[in-house]
């Protein structure tokens, strides 16, 4: 397993075509540097964000997921970002119950003009997840065996 000290988290970021994706473009145009750990997925709206996507990202090995959208009241589709907000809140509760730290799922609002803010959000997210360490969902699972000795260590058969 990777040492925590040089651990580079992988973050999947979902962006809205009208605001946060454009904010990412703007960050690029303005040459604002941020960690390369983030990989963006463009959706038409944060309202398109299906919790399945987030679960898929975690299951496939992401260490954190960022959901970004237009600021409340500024949704390109009027009010769909509020639906994203509601889903985010319920999804976060569910993930916490599954043992995934709440900080691994983050919701941030960024308008098309907020390249700097988006870059800052990304940087902060990467650092937060770096502290949490790897999630490694995709590596765990099937091969783990356990003896009946309750005190025994988990034994990973690689």
């Amino acid at each position, binding site marked *: 397993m990777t040492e925590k000290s040089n651990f580079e988290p992988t973050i999947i970021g979902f962006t809205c075509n009208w605001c946060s994706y454009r904010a990412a473009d703007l960050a690029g145009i303005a040459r604002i540097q941020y960690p390369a750990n983030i990989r963006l997925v463009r959706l038409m709206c944060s309202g398109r964000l*299906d*919790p*399945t996507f987030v679960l898929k990202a975690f299951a496939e090995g992401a260490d954190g997921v960022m959901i970004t959208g237009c600021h409340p009241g500024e949704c390109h589709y009027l*009010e769909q970002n509020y639906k994203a907000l509601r889903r985010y*809140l*319920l999804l976060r509760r*569910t993930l916490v119950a599954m043992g995934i730290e709440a900080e691994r799922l983050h919701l941030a609002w960024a308008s098309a003009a907020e390249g700097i803010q988006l870059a800052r959000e990304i940087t902060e997210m990467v650092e937060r997840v770096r502290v949490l360490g790897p999630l490694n969902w995709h590596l765990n699972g099937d091969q783990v065996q356990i*003896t009946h000795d309750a005190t025994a260590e988990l034994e990973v058969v690689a």
Partner: protein
Amino acid sequence: MKPKFAMYWASSCGGCEIAVLNTHEKILDVDANFDVAFWPVAMDAKYKDVEAMEDKSILLTLFNGGIRNDENEEIANLLRQKSQILVAFGSCATEGCIPGMANFSPSHEIVETAFHTLSTENPNSIYPQTSYKMPEGTIYIPTINSRVKTLVDVVPVDYFMPGCPPESHQISAVLDLVIAVVKGEAELPPKGAVIGVGNSTVCDECDRERDVKKIREFTRAHLVGALDPNLCLLEQGIPCNGSATRSGCDARCPTAGAQCIGCYGPAPGVIDYGARLISSFASVVDSNDPDEIERILDGIPDPAGQFYRFSLAGSLLKGAREAV
């Protein structure tokens, strides 16, 4: 010679067997058309008898129960080898079901709970060991896996038949179909199909009236003085899972005034059952204020249990972090 029939219970409660017996006279058709080769709950049989059979000599195997331990896994492999048609029968085999909820906890905690809680009388703290050396030699009991797996996680499966348990009339229909196939009167559905179910969701079979949904509060049926007998339960704040759950049960629970808890599993094309419910319930929460949304969501005290009661082992995450 009649074709061979087998039914096996892995990690399950036995309800699936009862459901098969609940087909009443239909069970006679099974006897008339099949030679029951292996059915531990109904007749005495030894694994070595199955091992001795020729490969693919069993026409139809209804496999119920999830894969909890190495014995389950071994028999799953064995029956796969010996069967032409292997059906993941019931919710446990298809998606983990209630035993699959064990995936919320690491398995050592489950052992701990079973052998060392207040209600357990185990004064000498004796824990079962996987092997024990006796004068006569070493004996073994099955080893439990770190998590419950579904049947398809361990062997290729021909058909899936969800339900906890599958409704008896659905079982009858499936038996009829196989008998008709044997007689050359019908054809099997394509491999991998979900059988004995409807095409849509429980709402399709539910007679309750429904309107657009705006949820101000989630509650529980026993906390509501009188539920409207005709109105959609979700609209009354009862977290009914019917809208995401495969049809086929005739909407028994919501019709009787109890919310659907999702035993028939995800609707066709759904990748993660819980994600669908999280998304749909949250979408119709009638507030844009984070604090108020949180207050409304407080009405679902155990979201993971609410959304993954039956489907945890078969979900994208397969279980909670400590367990996977």
